[in-house]
Each structure stands twice: as structure tokens, then as C-alpha cells.
């Protein structure tokens, strides 16, 4: 065993996942793909363990610049570990599914996310950044419906745009500083702002977040699990790398923590509710990054770690529900706990983790960020986070659990989820509980050492429990008095209206106007040569095939115009 570890030392775990993904993509036999989905993460995990020393490995020399593909340090290793873990858990969870496209895509996606975290320079980051976009899109397409297709296209467009922004920002950054390094950047320069926007798109900054609740609910059941895990957490990592301690992030994060709550309450699609809850989670992490002190950064890292697991768990339970009932709409579900008890228990564990109940993983992570806000003497941030954390996040996850598993029973004659799905969920649920109890294991992974921090202090636990009880009480009252906004199946407009309706309308209008304009110009330009054109048309027109060809006359005119332009410019140029 030590021999193997020695060999793997310094080999980026990303390659194992990506190679396994490529093989799985090409493999026509389902068992082989399933095996790859389990073996790939195992090898990646081995490589993670094998690399003891922090440092830069896997440097590719490209002549003009060097690509650092494996920068292993205290910040990156925790992200890599959780990405590998979730790839494995997803491998177990997805064992029942027979879809060649999603198997390979999920692995490549995981590998790309790991690679992006491990990249030491902006170019490598860009490469893996775009790879995550490209590899994740099939997870949405695989759902098959035209809606999913369109949502996937929108998702892909936004993700690729983020990558383009990243590349542009990186290029400007490099031209200003002469370095492609992926280190602290700051928003003092235009490059910094571009990079912040690039990261912000993936991190779901307010008004840039719309792809998240748009695309995730339309992915396949398995796909949404993977989607929830990687992209956004990767963005948080990038922010922690480049913009730690950036004051603007606190405000952005607070908005992110608060506004999705309302949307989560009213959206009827439970996966969309979860997507909003995910944005709220991200808000916490962004605040943590913005605060920038060691405690808060630790909190962001810890939150990312446990957040990946419990959000994946929540999506897994909904995936199981979707698998059995074919829907995740709040208005069509209810009372499933009787028929799917194990899934229900897992969902409850996930919800308790999300809410941050003591003894569950959410608690030990979230309390770090709250402490960070407190020690930074940022009372407003603290108050808002408390509001967002205990009180209302609970509303959203409680809603998911209540609507799906309790409440009024609808007529779903369903069986318990498949064994493999249950196993995957159980693994994640175990981690949720284990990390909440044995929190030292989590804290040891954090980028900054915090041996003296103790989450389970009486006042801390008591206060948290009080918060949660209050939130639950309000929820119970609201449900009891039928005040909870759960009336019908509907769509709630969000920022995506701006491009799905306004932008769409503007594009259609622009296209129509543009066509009119081109038509008018063409008519005006070709009036003089219309006769020649008609003659040519008569001569060379086999059944109107020429209609889409441009006549030479138009082009001759262009040539003359261009000649005139060059002549004018060169005629009036000064002598050198």
C-alpha cells in the first residue's frame, strides 16, 4: 500500500475522475460505467491521501507560460476532499440509473471541479472552469423534455459566459501585473471586477443567480445532486482564493442569505425551493469570505464541506421521490413518509443539518461563521445571519420535508426508493450526523488551525435550539392556520424574467427590426443594379435557388465603397 501511495504522490486527483469519466462516456456496458463511477473517486481519494506535503505539482510547461495543475495547500485540500466524497456517494446513489450520458458527465464534472480547485494559475482555472460548464450541461439535457433542453441551453450560455469573463479578466490581470497566478486579487482594478463577476455568476450573486433555480429543477434526479455539489462551491473557493476579506462580499452575501427565503417559500417545485435554499447557504459562505478573518474563512470552508453533503442529501431524497412518483411539485405530493420511511428519515436528517440543529453537521459549521461575524464586531451582519440562519432557512427546508413526506396524503401508491439510492442517501446522512458529533475531524481539515474553538457551549447550543424552535413554531402556526402560501401550481417571476421574457422579447424585436433595416439598406443599395440583377436572376435561377445567394452586384458595390473608404483615409493621412 505505501508503494501505491508513493506512486500517487503528486498526481492530481482530478485526472482520475476525468479519465474515469471519459472511459465511462465511451463504455457501452452499464456495469463497467457503474464500476468506473466507484473506482474513479476511490483512486482520486488515494491520490488525495498520498499527497502529504502541500506544494505545487503537475506543472505543464507551455512555453510562454506555465500551467500549475495541482496546487495542494491548506485551502484547496478540504474542497477537493469533499468533491471526491460526493462523487463517490453519487456513484453509489446513481447505481440504479442507466444513462450513459449522465454517468460520464457527472465524473468529468467532478474531475473538472477538483481540477479547478487545484489549479494554481488563472489559465488552468479557466480551462477547468469551462469544463465544469460543458460537463454539467448534459446532466440537464438528459432529462429530455424540451423545457429541460431550453433550460440547459440557458444554463450553458450563462456558465460559458462566466468562463469568458474569467478569461478576459485573467488576461487583463496578467497584462497589468504580469502574473497569471491565482492568488489574492481584490477589486481595485477592472480585471478584479471582471474576475469577481465571473466567480459571482457561478456563486449565484443576486441578479446573477437566476440560472440556479432555473436549471436545477429541470435536471434529472441524479443530475441535480451533482449539480448542487460542485459549481457553486467551486465559486466559493475561487472567491476565498481571490477576494478574501473583500468588504463588498459581506453585503452581497447578506442579500444572498435573505432574499431567497421568500422565493423558497412560494415556489411550488420543491427542487426549486432547495435551489433557493442553496443560494441562501452560499450567502453564508460569501459573508464568511467577505469577513476574511481566520474564523470566518474557516467557517466558509466548513460550510462548503458540510453544505455539499447535506444539500446533496436533500437533492438525493427529492431525486428518490421524483424517481418513484414522477413529480416534485408541492401541490402533488404529501404523506410519503408512510411509503418511503427511510427516504423520509434521510430527508429529516438533511433538513436538521441544513437548519443547523446541534449534533448535526450544519451547526458546527454555521456557528463558525456567526462567531466570525461576531469577532469582527459586525453586528448588523450577525443579526441578519441569525435571521437568515435559524429562523427562516428552516422554513424552506421544513417546507420541503413537510410537503413531501407529511401533510395531506395524496394518492401515490409508491414503493420505497431503490436499495442503491438508499445506500447513497444513508452514506450522506451518516456523514451529516458524524461530522456534527465528531466535529474535530472536520475542524482538522480547515485551512487555519482552530484547536481551541468549542461549538458545544451551553449558551451556544441553547441559543441555537431556541432559534430553531421559534422558527418551527412559526412554521407550525402558519401551516395550522393555512397561512402558508401553498395554493396552486404556479411560476414566480424572478430575475430570470429579464432574459427569459424581457431579453427574449427584445431579441425578437431587435431581430425583426434588424431584418427590416437590412432589407431597407439592400433595397436602397441595389436599386441601381436591380435590372442587371433581374437579368442575372433570370439567367442563373434554377427554381429560385439563387434567392439565398448574394448577387455579385451588391458585392461590387461594397468593393467600391471600401475602395472609397481606403482612398479617403490614405489620401487625408498626414505624411510621416
Amino acid at each position: 500500500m505505501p508503494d501505491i501511495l508513493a506512486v500517487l504522490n503528486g498526481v492530481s486527483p482530478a485526472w482520475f475522475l476525468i479519465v474515469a469519466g471519459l472511459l465511462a462516456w465511451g463504455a457501452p456496458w452499464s456495469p463497467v460505467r457503474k464500476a468506473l463511477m466507484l473506482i474513479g473517486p476511490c483512486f482520486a481519494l488515494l491520490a488525495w491521501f498520498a499527497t502529504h506535503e502541500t506544494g505545487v505539482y503537475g506543472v505543464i510547461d507551455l512555453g510562454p507560460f506555465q500551467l500549475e495543475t495541482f496546487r495542494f495547500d491548506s485551502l484547496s485540500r478540504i474542497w477537493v476532499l469533499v468533491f471526491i466524497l460526493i462523487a463517490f456517494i453519487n456513484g453509489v446513489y446513481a447505481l440504479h440509473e442507466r444513462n450513459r450520458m449522465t454517468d460520464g458527465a457527472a465524473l468529468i464534472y467532478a474531475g473538472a471541479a477538483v481540477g479547478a480547485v487545484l489549479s494554481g494559475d488563472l489559465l488552468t482555472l479557466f480551462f477547468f472552469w469551462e469544463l465544469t460548464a460543458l460537463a454539467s450541461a448534459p446532466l440537464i439535457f438528459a432529462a429530455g423534455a424540451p423545457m429541460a433542453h431550453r433550460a440547459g441551453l440557458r444554463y450553458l450560455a450563462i456558465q460559458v459566459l462566466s468562463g469568458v469573463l474569467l478569461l478576459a479578466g485573467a488576461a487583463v490581470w496578467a497584462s497589468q501585473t504580469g502574473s497569471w497566478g491565482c492568488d489574492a486579487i481584490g477589486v481595485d482594478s477592472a480585471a478584479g471586477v471582471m474576475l469577481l463577476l465571473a466567480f459571482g455568476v457561478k456563486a449565484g450573486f443576486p441578479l446573477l443567480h437566476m440560472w440556479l433555480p432555473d436549471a436545477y429543477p429541470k435536471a434529472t434526479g441524479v443530475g441535480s445532486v451533482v449539480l448542487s455539489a460542485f459549481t457553486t462551491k467551486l465559486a466559493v473557493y475561487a472567491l476565498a482564493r481571490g477576494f478574501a476579506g473583500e468588504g463588498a462580499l459581506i453585503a452581497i452575501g447578506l442579500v444572498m442569505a435573505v432574499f431567497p427565503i421568500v422565493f423558497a417559500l412560494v415556489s411550488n417545485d420543491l427542487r426549486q425551493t432547495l435551489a433557493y435554499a442553496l443560494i441562501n447557504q452560499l450567502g453564508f459562505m460569501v459573508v464568511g469570505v467577505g469577513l476574511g478573518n481566520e474564523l470566518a474563512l474557516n467557517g466558509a470552508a466548513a460550510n462548503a464541506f458540510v453544505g455539499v453533503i447535506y444539500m446533496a442529501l436533500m437533492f438525493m431524497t427529492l431525486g428518490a421521490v421524483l424517481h418513484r412518483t414522477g413529480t416534485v411539485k408541492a401541490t402533488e405530493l404529501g404523506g410519503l413518509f408512510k411509503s418511503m420511511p427511510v427516504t423520509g428519515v434521510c430527508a429529516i436528517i438533511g433538513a436538521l443539518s441544513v437548519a443547523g440543529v446541534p449534533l448535526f453537521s450544519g451547526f458546527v459549521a454555521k456557528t463558525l461563521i456567526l462567531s466570525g461575524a461576531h469577532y469582527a464586531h459586525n453586528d448588523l451582519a450577525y443579526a441578519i445571519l441569525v435571521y437568515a440562519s435559524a429562523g427562516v432557512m428552516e422554513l424552506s427546508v421544513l417546507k420541503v420535508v413537510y410537503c413531501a413526506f407529511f401533510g395531506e396524503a395524496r394518492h401515490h401508491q409508491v414503493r420505497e426508493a431503490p436499495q442503491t439510492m438508499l445506500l447513497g442517501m444513508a452514506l450522506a446522512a451518516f456523514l451529516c450526523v458524524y461530522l456534527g458529533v465528531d466535529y474535530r475531524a472536520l475542524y482538522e481539515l480547515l485551512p487555519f488551525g482552530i484547536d481551541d474553538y468549542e461549538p458545544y457551549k451551553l449558551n451556544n447550543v441553547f441559543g441555537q435550539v431556541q432559534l430553531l424552535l421559534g422558527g418551527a413554531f412559526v412554521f407550525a402556526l402558519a401551516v395550522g392556520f393555512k397561512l402558508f402560501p401553498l395554493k396552486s401550481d404556479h411560476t414566480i417571476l424572478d430575475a430570470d424574467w429579464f432574459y427569459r421574457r424581457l431579453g427574449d422579447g427584445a431579441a425578437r424585436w431587435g431581430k425583426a427590426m434588424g431584418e427590416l433595416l437590412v432589407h431597407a439598406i439592400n433595397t436602397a443599395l441595389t436599386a441601381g443594379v436591380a435590372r442587371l440583377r433581374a437579368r442575372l436572376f433570370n439567367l442563373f435561377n434554377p427554381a429560385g435557388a439563387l434567392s439565398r445567394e448574394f448577387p455579385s452586384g451588391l458585392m461590387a458595390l461594397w468593393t467600391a465603397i471600401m475602395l472609397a473608404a481606403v482612398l479617403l483615409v490614405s489620401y487625408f493621412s498626414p505624411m510621416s
Partner: protein
Amino acid sequence: MTVGQWLPTALAAHAPVLLVAVPLILSTPAAILRTGRAGWAIALSGALLALLCAVELFLATRADGAVISYALGGWPPPFGIEFRVDGLNAALLLLLTGAAVLALIFARPSVENEINADKRSLFYSAFLVSLSGLAGVAITGDAFNLFVFLEISSIPTYALIAMGANRDRRALTSAFNYLVMGAIGATFFVIGVGFLYMATGTLNMADLARLLVDMDGDRVVRMGFAFILVGLGLKAALFPLHLWLPGAYAYAPSFVTVFLATTATKVAFYVIIRFSFDVFAIDSGFVVNALTYVVTPLAIAGMIVASAQALFQTDVRRLLAYSSVAQAGYMMLGLGMGSQAGVSAGVLHLINHALMKGVLFMALGAFAISYGVRRIENCKGLGMMMPMTASAFTLGALSLIGVPFTVGFISKFYLIQAALAQGWIFAVAAILISSVLAVFYCYRILVNLWVTPIPEGRRDLAQPTPYLILVPLVGLALANLVFGVHAAPLVDIAETAAAAAINAGTGS
């Protein structure tokens, strides 16, 4: 004259002229012979010999600032016709002949599929003449001789495009369109050369460069420049003078499209570089102004508008043709910067674009042979049916988008760097917008290739892809990857070429 390290000295000494003359003389037996196979063999051997000469010349010019001059008929340069090879056109000649060889390997199955048996040997003959003409354009050091070679290369090209009429009669109108446009372009060029001759009394390009240094204010010279730039811009499909190109690429036989897309506009582009930077002094105000205020805006407009046009095409080859116009915009943009870094990036993109469009059009040719596929929606499921070809196509498309580890990324990267050095943020923005558009139009094809299932009944039509297509196709696709990771050789070539273009003009 530099003694070659590659061919025997007797041949090496005459390599410049052999490069042009061998395809020309071999075109005659190809025209007389009746069988397509023999024509193909002759054409291939002609292209191979030309490639050998090009390699020889390329190696000989690797030394710093080395220039090979060959006086035709023994008449010394300012009076006689001179063939002149430096770092700039040595690279182009290598690209040209290399592309010809690869395209010819691909040609046999493709031509047998698309051209009538009795026309095949004539087809190869025309191709050889065209190759000879293009090589002549690239190699000659005499401005009027360049015009002659331009015509020699163009006329067979019109015929080659018209051969596509077997499959689609629109090839005829396209060829005619191209003929009219090509004639206009060549005429403009020769008018410009006439003006220069009037002003300086010489046709030799090196001599012109020497004389023009002091004639900055001469309006006749400026007229000449304008005509030459526009005439060549037409040949190089500079937006908006590109209207001939989509039809020509879309309806020509596959092999012709592969060859044209990789070489023809590139050669015209080379001539623009040669004239703008070498013959005319780049420090003349009117050259810089024309490049900055006319070529650059048009290049940017082309990058964006042509990409957008590509987005709406339904015919795959037309789509790629519009993309070629956009890519020509990238090269023009590099040129428009007027800096050495810009020209170097432009030349790099020229080479890289040949690599990626070669792959793309070849793969389309393979699809067309196996399934008669022309339209985007007909590509459905081809990823499963022809995995090798579809993978190569995908690689080419990724390269076109500019994904890292492909050549497309390298040249865009250098182009962006050159633009930044110039402080042209708008150019960077244009490159990025165009790249995003490229993502979308490539995506349209790739989704059909890989994601959508195979339509009913197509599986029964399956034919194996001929090895003669697979070999050059996979080779080119790998080249996209290899030079994307190990970019140093191509970058070096491009930088040498740019140095040759710019330093030669400053009187050295």
C-alpha cells in the same frame, strides 16, 4: 544561395522554381490521362515533390534573416522576375503544400464519390494548376508576376468549384459569383500595381520597398495602395467583401472546400501582409491609418456579424464558411494592429485556422460520403455511427471555439495579448463576443452529433469511413491538440514570419 540540408544540392539550388514548376508540368499528363486513379497519383506525387521543396526552403530560411533569392531565366532581380523566400512565405509555402498533400490523400474517396469518372483526371489537373498558382503567388518577388500567378490559381479554382454542380447546381452560380468577384479583385490589384509602376518604374517588390520609403507623400502611391488593399481584401474574403465565400465553400466538392479553406484565402492574406508591411513602409502614415481606421473596424465587424450569420445557417458547410469569414476577421485584426506582435498573432491564427478548418471540412466530407449529410439536422446521431470522424470534428470545433489545449486557444491568446499591448480593449471584447458566438454555432452541430439519437433507418446505411480519409483527418485533429499543448514551434514560426515581414520593410 543557401545550400539545402534536405534535398541533394542540385535540386536544392532550384527548389524555389521547382516548387511552382513541378505541379504545373505534372498537370499536363494529368489532363491527358483518362483515369481518375492515375490523375490522383500524379497529383499526389506533384504535391509531395512540392512539399519536399517547401521543407527544403523552410529549413534554409530558419537561419536568422536568411533570404533565398532565385532569378528566373538568369536575369538579375530588379529587371528579371525574382522568386524570393524569407521567413514569412517559407512558412506559408510549407502550410500550402502540406495542406495540399493532406487534402489529396483525402481526395481519392471523396472525389470518387462526387465527381463523374470522365472528369476526374481533369479535376486533378486543374487542382495542380491551382496549387502551382498559389505557390507562385506565395513565392514570387515580382508584383506583376504575382498578379499572373493570382490568375493562374484563380481560374482553375472557379472550375473546381463549379464541379460541385453534380450534387448541387447552386455550385454553378457560386462559381460564377466567385469568378466575377475574383476578376474584380485581381483587376483592382493589377491597377494598384500599375500605379506603383507609374510612380517608381519598377515591379520588383524588394526594389519597390526600397524606393517607396521616400515616397510617402506621393498620391499615386497612395492610390496604388488603396487599390491593392481592396483587391486583395476581396481575395482574402475580408468582411464585407466575403459574399462570394459562403456559396463557394458550401457547394464546391468536399475536397475543394478542404483545400480552399486551408489555403486560398491564406495566400491572399499573406500578400496583404507582404504589401502592407514589406513593400509599403509600415511607418507611412497612410498605411497605418488605413489599417487602423478601415481594416480594423471591418475585421471586428466581420468577426461579430459573420459569426452571427453562422449562427442562423442550416447547411453545415455554409455555417463553417461564415465562421471562416469571422476567422479571417481575427487575422485581419492582428494585421490591423500594425505591430509585430499583431502580425505574429495573425500569422499564427492563419496557420491554426488552416489546421482546424481542415479537420472540420474533412470530417464533413466524410459525413457526406457516408450519409450524404449536408444540413445540421441531418447530423443527428453521427457521433455513434462514426465515432472517429465525429470525435475529430468535435476536436476541430473545440479548437475553433478556442478551448485551452487546442491551437485555437493559443492564437486567440496571442491575439488578445497583442491587443492588450496596444491598449485595444474593444478588440479583446470583440474577440470574446465572437468566441461566445462560436460556442453557440459549434454547439448546434455538436448537440446533433452526439446528443440526439440516431434516426430510424440510418443505421442500415452505415458504411465504414475509408482509411484514406481517416488518416489525414485524425492526423490533423491530433495536430490541433499537439500544437495546442506544445505551441512553441508554431509560435516560433509565426514570430519569425512577422519579423521577416516587418524588418524587411524597414530597408534592411
